[in-house]
């Protein structure tokens, strides 16, 4: 069995398959499994720490004898062979010998590029060296060299301080891209999602105004593994006034997305809760169209957020502008019918869900059908079945889902897979 994607959907699928006695190979295109969920500080509606619930599952994947984990790996060709598939996998070099690296971290400190390369895991809010581990709880616990950032690999010139400090001699610049050829009986695809890039919505000021962030960026600011160690700080200062805007890139024809992203209402309410917990005198506004608190305990969470003093304004702001003291949000409050101008320090955009950028390529090589937005097409009575026999999908790849729904969809995909194997 092949599972593509190492987020919570892929992790759940791999572990369930393994518990049913099936051998699994998991491909993750990044250096660590964990997906989007591991980037989160907390999860709604219980405010459970995301790492605390997910890291044990990641470790289970790494330790499970039935699961083979390949990171920095993606399929490049999938061909039907009898009932199964012949799969070509491209494995990018890590430039670090996994069997030797002890994750001591000396190489990162020594790297001349330290603090100079934008760190994707932190939504580019922090800088990292060229040899690094994406986050402290990464699985596998192994460092890697980013070929683009490394001076030696990209330009052939560097004093290679990392090599000097590495006790176990784990750094190996001679590693090359590998192509593996394997046969699998069935495939589960779980490539996950990306978030809408709100730069094109110029009126909201993302990318041009200081203090306008996306929800995921804010999540990293709150996270203890994030750029500020979990202190909500912008440019060294603790902001007091927050303005959240929901449905940015969801329910919005202009951005090509008519659909509801299903998670932004609740993650915004969660952010408001985190702020109230850490900044006692914070002033928080949330702009919304409809608050979609549909899951178990969500409505109560939304109510509690309101009761704790967060103001909900029905109406999406027309613009965000710079003032001397910070930012100003202009919004028509549809309930009072007034145009309001609200001063704030931070504007956080609850950006909607998009198919992960690799999804299109995956669909191409596997001939999977997509819906009008690029999510993998399924139907409601067989929620993980794709148009190709033997290939199943779970998680956000087939459309927005929260974590609980993603977990259930992963179980469903495993059920279909097991049935396919028995047929």
């Amino acid at each position, binding site marked *: 069995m092949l599972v593509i994607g190492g987020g919570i959907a892929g992790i759940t699928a791999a572990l*369930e398959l393994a*518990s*049913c*006695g099936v051998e699994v190979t998991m491909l993750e295109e990044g250096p660590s499994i964990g997906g989007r969920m591991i980037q989160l*500080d907390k*999860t709604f*509606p*219980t405010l459970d*720490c995301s*790492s*605390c*619930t*997910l*890291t*044990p*599952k*990641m*470790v289970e994947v790494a330790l499970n004898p039935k699961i083979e984990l390949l990171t920095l790996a993606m399929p490049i060709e999938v061909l039907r062979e009898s009932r199964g598939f012949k799969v070509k996998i491209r494995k990018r070099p890590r430039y670090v010998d996994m069997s030797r690296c002890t994750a001591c971290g000396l190489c990162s400190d020594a790297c001349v590029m330290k603090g100079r390369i934008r760190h994707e895991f932190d939504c580019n809010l922090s800088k990292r060296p060229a040899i690094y581990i994406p986050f*402290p*709880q990464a*699985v*596998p*616990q192994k460092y890697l060299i980013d070929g683009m950032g490394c001076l030696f690999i990209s330009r052939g010139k560097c004093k290679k301080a990392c090599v000097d400090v590495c006790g176990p001699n784990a750094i190996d610049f001679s590693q090359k891209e590998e192509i593996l050829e394997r046969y699998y009986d069935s495939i589960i695809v779980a490539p996950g999602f990306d978030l809408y890039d709100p730069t094109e919505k110029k009126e909201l000021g993302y990318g041009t105004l200081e203090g306008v962030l996306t929800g995921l960026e804010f999540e990293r600011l709150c996270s*203890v*593994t994030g750029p500020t160690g*979990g202190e909500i700080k912008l440019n060294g200062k603790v902001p007091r006034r927050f303005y959240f805007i929901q449905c940015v890139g969801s329910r919005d024809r202009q951005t090509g997305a*008519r*659909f*509801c992203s299903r998670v932004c209402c609740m993650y915004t309410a969660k952010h408001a809760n985190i702020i109230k917990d850490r900044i006692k005198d914070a002033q928080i506004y949330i702009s919304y169209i*409809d608050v*979609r*608190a*549909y*899951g*178990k*305990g*969500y*409505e109560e969470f939304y109510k509690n957020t309101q009761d704790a003093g967060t103001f909900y304004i*029905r109406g999406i702001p027309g613009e965000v502008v710079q003032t001397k003291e910070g930012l100003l949000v202009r919004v028509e409050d549809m*309930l009072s*019918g007034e145009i309001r101008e609200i001063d704030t320090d931070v504007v956080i955009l609850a950006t909607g869900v998009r198919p992960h950028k690799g999804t299109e390529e995956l669909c191409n090589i596997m001939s999977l059908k997509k819906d009008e937005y690029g999510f993998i097409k399924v*139907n*409601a*009575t067989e*929620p993980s079945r794709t148009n190709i026999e033997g290939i199943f999908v779970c998680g956000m790849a*087939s459309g*927005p889902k929260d*974590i*609980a*729904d993603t*977990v*259930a*969809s992963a*179980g*469903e995909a*495993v*059920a279909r897979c*097991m*049935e396919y194997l*028995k047929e």
Partner: protein
Amino acid sequence: MRIGIFICHCGHNIKSTVDIEGLKGYFKGLNNIACVEDYPFMCSEPGQALIKSSIERFGLGRVIIAACTKALHQDMFKNLVRDAGLNPFLLRRVSIREHCSWTGEDIEKNTSKAIRLIRAGIYSSAHYEPLEEKQVEVNKSALILGGGISGMSAAAFLARAGMEVYLVEKEKELGGHVRHLEDVWPVRERGKDIIERMTEELKTLNNVHIFTSSRLVSFGGSFGNYEAVIENSGGEIKVIVGGVIVAIGFTAFDPSIKPELQYGIDKRVITTLEFEEKMHELPIKEGSRVAILHCIGSRDEIIGRPYCSRICCINAIKTGEAIKNRFKDSYVESFYMDVRSHPRGGEEFYEDTQEKGLLFTRANISEIIPEQGGLVLRGEDTLLGMPFEREFDLVVLSIGMSPPKDNQEIAGLLKITLDKDRFFLEAHPKLRPYDTALKGIFIAGTCSGPKDMEESINHGRASAVKLYGLLNLGYAFIEPFVAYVDPKRCSGCRMCEQACVAKAIKFDEGLHIVRVEEAACMGCGLCNATCPSSAIALKGYKDTIIDDEISALTEAV
């Protein structure tokens, strides 16, 4: 004895309200404490590596992990300790997150409490003994309670995987609520057709045993060997099953408890379910005025339904669409608080229906006044901030999901828990959404909270996979916390025998003492509490362990 203490920061959770350095300082250098370590996430790979290497390096005899509650990650930490060569029952978890850092913000008090709790862990674990988990045979069979879409989905999977399945449905036929839907969104099929297709499929599988008009009357045993008695007109049938999936669904909300809506009093007020069943018989024609009310029996704290029912917005839109499709010139207005058309394709459906002329008004409806000419809706338009009265010919109430009627009974029989809204409680809302606290017992579909059809199918099949994963080997390991008898102390009074719910205690006539049948013992401890001569105790929970724990908790810091 060499004891290692491992303190987790849990990111912010513990570190921000407990003085980790203070804790370390207190325990470092105490007698028998070989090491005191801390790490941001003990559960992560480096955290686990730290514990493992410390066990090996210091030759630890006891491991104290001060972190989250034992309810989380226990198996993982046990495996870790086992891998490091230590008996896993010499591990002690101390909850300094739920019991200290989450209870208040006073760092001094939290730290002092954490010291007491860790100390209690040290004192009691000193009396721990290495124990072995027992391997028991498990039945590759499942009991599924509820023959709705979720239960049927689960049954089909398990049967195809080769397990014996007993599917119990209290109604005459399978299919639950879906069977009665005229138009299932988004597949736009008759519910009956979907159900009959699934029923036909189940009938082709000869290891599915379907019991309709039947109910569960008694339940006992333990994981892998649960005993269930099913009752129907034919009498009682006893089955032994490895696990159970509870999928008893929901009850449609009965709006008659809200008299201001006139439901049950005026025939012109109906529910979405009734609309679905008798759409073609309703007196709707071109020009008819129809109101659809959202959130009936949902988001309503006064009647004890504070939750969102998740499906009623789509049902309301579907109702409006059905009317507009048949009668273009009807006037259909939907009154909502928020439109929650979140499912895949739901938002598009909402927009397209608006384009067909379905009107949406954000409003609170206070009452329906029956008049000769029509039903007058009185309410407040919350966008305009204005009160209004409007007359309609028909009012459709988009009703929510209430907990299943048999919830209390099933919860009692299976010893599983209900949540505050009286749906079944899941083990973890995110990562274990269909597990219960009991091994091998799952809750699928709407009995754990409102869900649409797709989500119910996912739940049914996902829980079935999990159950299959637990049973497919034919054996499993169970905890060794069983009762044992000190023959010198036992007076043969047999009080424990009466107290034992698992019928695991047998009286030995010859020796005039009792014995414990370990395979049957559930480890509940009732015998322990009943014994007047302290002759029977639970392995791992000896009196000395508890006594020392209490004294450590009460001693001054």
